């Protein structure tokens, strides 16, 4: 059902955790719904130097979290804000039909973290 890439990201996720002294934090979801994605970022010279996630959720939630973090890391704030759902899905070689519920959550959490950073540094 899931692509190889999804299962790879799911079973060997990189960048799990919370960035120390985070410059921005985003969190999406709730226990009632069954998933929570937390993304924290460290920004230096307008670049996302470190990005980490903690996710409670399904295979899609975890694999997209890992993917979003990998995609965002090293990018400029603007580049990261320009990431799309399609970027994430294509990075994962697609997601199965009917499993799109969580696919946008990780990106939402990332953008929330960036907005948090922008807001704090205004």
């Amino acid at each position, binding site marked *: 059902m*899931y692509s190889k890439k999804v*299962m790879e990201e*799911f*079973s060997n*996720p990189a960048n*799990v955790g919370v960035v120390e002294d985070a410059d921005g934090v985003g*969190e999406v979801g709730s*226990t*009632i*719904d*069954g*998933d*929570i*994605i*937390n993304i924290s970022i460290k920004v230096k010279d307008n670049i996302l130097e470190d990005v980490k996630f*903690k*996710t*409670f*959720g*399904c*295979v*899609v*939630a*975890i694999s997209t979290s890992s993917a979003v973090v990998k995609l965002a890391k090293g990018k400029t704030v603007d580049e990261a804000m320009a990431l799309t759902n399609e970027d994430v899905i294509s990075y994962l070689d697609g997601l199965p039909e*009917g*499993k*799109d*519920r*969580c696919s946008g959550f990780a990106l939402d959490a990332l953008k929330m973290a960036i907005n948090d950073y922008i807001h704090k540094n205004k």
Partner: protein
Amino acid sequence: MKRIYMDHSATTPVDSLVVDAMLPFFSEIFGNASSLHSFGTEAAEALSLARKQVADAIGALPEEIIFTSGGTESDNLAIRGVVPFNEGKKHIITSVIEHPAVLNTCSFLESLGHEVTYVPVDVDGIIDVKVLEESIRKNTAIISVMHANNEVGTIQPIEEISGIAKEHNIYFHTDAVQSVGKIPVNVDDLGVDMLSISSHKIHGPKGVGALYVRNGTNISPIVFGGNHEKGMRSGTENVSGIVGFGKAMELAAERLSEDSVHMTRMRDSLISRVFDTISDVRLNGHPSKRLPNNVNMSFKYAEGESMLMLLDMQGVAVSTGSACSSKSLKASHVLSALRIEDEFIHGSLRMSLGRENTMDDIDHMVDALQETITKLRAMSPLADR
């Protein structure tokens, strides 16, 4: 990698004795049981034997067995079958934790103008018999309550409910798909008018089942055609499948006490070892009134599908009570009915044991589970709050 199957409530491997029994019926004794020639009569004799095997295993008469394509069709036939014989009786009583085969049959009947009362259960999954009795009306046509639940394994007080049904002269059906082969199932002891069975849950082939219909119970068919099964289920009989089902029922009855002791030992060991080695865990379903092969536990800070997939990668097959239907991550209607708390409801696993599982499998399962939970909790933002 060693693969361990612990999803016997979903389906079971066909027993090799069952396969052996079926094999001659593909290319040698292949006749249509309705044919008059010897190819046909050989097939008809095989059906008779299987009918007796199924009947004997549940204390019924052969003529009280209608072969169907499985548990789902049996449930449909039982509930929809009595409707035409109950002109004016348009009320059905069932429970909130029935299998979709019963629940969706009921919704279908609701769409045709019938009324259905869904009786609630307590936190262990036992039906509220008082509410059930109070919901009986003059126009109640049938009560359908499952013998044992497929998700949490809770066993219902069927004798009590059938007694109430009898008192009010209402047909009583039970879905025994999960209980056959695990606990004693005798139609007279249970006092039921109809009872559903599915072959593939008891080491028989898929696509076969039966509805027991007590002599004197009037039902009408839901599939029309050549009037097989005394007109109650048309369609050329699946001879090889029915032969396998018959054999599987015979074996289930023969091995019941041995199997249930074996499964109970494994079940109890699995439950206590999980409690011993993993924190923040709960057992779903009734602590004692549960199927010998059912372990349903919820783990905080770990989501069902993720657990299932990580376990699968370690060669262990289980099931979860939470499922994503794209628009929402739905908790199962059963776990919801048991009022499991939010933190636990999306993190449930059903480990359902089978005849061929061993204590070694339990060891392996506990190890794999520990690794899985550790990994997911390390990832969870909730675990350290």
